[in-house]
């Protein structure tokens, strides 16, 4: 299955080694893991993969464009809450809730003496609207934040701190508005999607495969963005923002774009989380999960799309194993891991792979892999033939 792509594929947005990488990941997620793991463990992987959407967004936003957001949990949460609102409304049919003083509204609203469905819940009766909202609501939110910050040239550490503050604000807001949001417990007891019970094992397996499918689609999208000129502009901006500006680009609009894209990707992950895990709560919105997601990306390699996916899987797998055996040590382990990444291998697992493993594997695939963190190589001069990828 790993036939090197024809040379004409050079004009395509994927290089041969990217295709091999994606194919291997697909093989692992679609065949190896479902065969090797029991249902219970597979559901764990499905949950981890929802964070991989966030990591993917961070690769584009932080790795390529150099915009560190410590508030990606906000977008994960917004996507998750949009989906949870839809599922909750479906679970709160008048028959299911006839013991409440106001039947037909979510249970937590009833407990909080709310007697009619708030206006902003109303559109979430529609699955079409919900699907759209999962992607669009976080993007609009990111646009507002990005517009306010990037047009004023707020960046770097200041931007990171502001995103962190947003994560804190949203958490407090959700917890404080218990009647509308379910408060600290979140939105729980979700049952069915369009009449399809999502709590059964078979449904969870199907949701796992949907999650993998969406992730692979998002990976392709990320590769497309990375290999377009926009991807190179992001790298250029990270390095010499002024030079990009004085080459005729409105730098802020590119930053807003990538921030919104990362937000939407995170939100898809959040929605898949809600579907697979069956609830959404503020504990996935706040500062701690947001920073953890940055660590997944850093460990995997913030410059590598696939690296970030593996990083997310590995860190979460380690988290689950450690938490089972030494729960009190896990946070130290995570902290230590982050320090190790910063000090010893700044480009994460992907960096280690590219500097040590790939050069030895290179000849096997007929083409030398790219140097560490090298962006797609430029085409040769117009007169020359189209060279194999990364012939440098």
């Amino acid at each position, binding site marked *: 299955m790993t036939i090197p792509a024809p040379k004409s594929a050079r004009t395509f947005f994927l290089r041969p080694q990217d295709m091999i990488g994606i194919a291997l990941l697909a093989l692992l997620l679609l065949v190896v893991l479902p065969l090797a793991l029991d249902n219970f463990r597979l559901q764990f992987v499905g949950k981890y993969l929802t964070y991989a959407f966030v990591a993917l967004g961070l690769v584009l936003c932080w790795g390529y464009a150099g915009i560190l957001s410590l508030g990606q949990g906000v977008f994960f949460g917004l996507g998750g809450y949009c989906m949870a609102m839809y599922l909750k409304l479906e679970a709160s049919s008048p028959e299911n809730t006839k013991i409440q003083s106001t039947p037909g509204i979510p249970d937590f609203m009833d407990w909080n003496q709310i007697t009619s469905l708030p206006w902003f819940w109303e559109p979430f009766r529609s699955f079409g609207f919900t699907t759209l909202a999962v992607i669009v609501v976080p993007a609009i939110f990111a646009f507002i934040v990005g517009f306010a910050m990037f047009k004023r040239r707020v960046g770097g550490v200041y931007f990171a701190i502001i995103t962190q503050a947003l994560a804190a604000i949203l958490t407090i807001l959700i917890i404080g508005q218990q009647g509308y949001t379910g408060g600290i417990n979140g939105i729980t007891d979700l049952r069915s999607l369009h009449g399809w019970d999502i709590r059964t094992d078979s449904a969870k397996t199907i949701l796992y495969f949907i999650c993998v499918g969406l992730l692979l689609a998002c990976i392709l999208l990320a590769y497309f*963005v990375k290999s*377009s*000129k*926009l991807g*190179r*502009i992001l*790298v*250029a901006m*990270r*390095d*010499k923002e*002024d*030079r*990009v*500006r*004085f*080459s*005729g*680009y*409105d*730098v802020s*609009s*590119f930053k807003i*774009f990538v921030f919104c894209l990362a937000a939407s990707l995170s939100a898809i992950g959040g929605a898949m989380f809600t579907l697979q895990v069956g609830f959404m709560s503020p504990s996935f919105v706040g500062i701690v999960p947001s920073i953890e997601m940055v660590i997944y990306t850093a460990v995997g390699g913030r410059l590598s799309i696939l690296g970030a996916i593996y990083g997310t899987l590995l860190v979460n797998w380690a988290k689950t194993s450690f938490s089972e055996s030494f729960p009190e040590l896990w946070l130290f382990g995570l902290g230590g891991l982050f320090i190790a990444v910063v000090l010893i291998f700044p480009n994460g697992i992907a960096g280690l792979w590219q500097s040590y493993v790939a050069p030895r594997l290179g000849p096997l695939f007929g083409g030398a892999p790219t*140097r560490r*963190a*090298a*962006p797609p*190589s*430029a*085409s*040769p*001069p*117009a*007169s020359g033939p189209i060279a194999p990828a990364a*012939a*440098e």
Partner: protein
Amino acid sequence: MNTQLITDTMNKDFVLAVEGLTVSFDGFKAVNDLSFYVDENEIRVIIGPNGAGKTTVLDLICGRTKATTGSIRFKERELTRMKEHEIVRAGVGRKFQNPSIYEDLTVFENLEISYPKGRTVVGALTFRRDTAVKERVQEIAETIFLADQLDQRAEYLSHGQKQWLEIGMLLIQDPELLMLDEPVAGMSVSERKKTAELLNTIIKNRSVIVIEHDMKFVEDIAHKVTVLHQGKILSEGSMAKVQADPKVIEVYLGH
């Protein structure tokens, strides 16, 4: 005399007209009531001691610094109210003092980003590396002596090559007004000679403002020299005239 000057200004189509330009940083006037005019196809060199405000003048023209008062008109458009990228799109290119290139990208990609197409988000996403782009990049790369380095990552270039690359990045934009801040600083003698040659080929059909300290170099290329001192014009005219000016000798050229 004064009216004469004003009518001259009105009648003539200057590419760049800077008038009454002042910028003050916390009360310190880095540029003070500065006026000068650049003709079509003119090469203007700005010289002056450190802190005279030379780089600030370029910053003001390209929009990096906002003027406190005064006006900068470029082809009848007021630059002081425009954003940086709009000024670039209007046809003003600027080279920074230290080579400002994208180290993580190849020479080809560096030039391609400066190619004046696909400058919006959608444009950049749908940008195709077509034959026109490749040919233009190749052409520029030959001009800046980097044709055999197109696939090289820019960080591996020598200092002089980085300077040339940045000049190439401006060239590919084909600006009508090109501003160069110390283009030969830090270069070896042979690189300097090659750069002078390069500048002589690229200044055709455009106006150029150069900041430079190297007097030999200035003599070679300047049509007209403006000497700045403490944010004001000390002297202006041909190189010979400026060199003979006692004020200039006193504050700048030395003895």
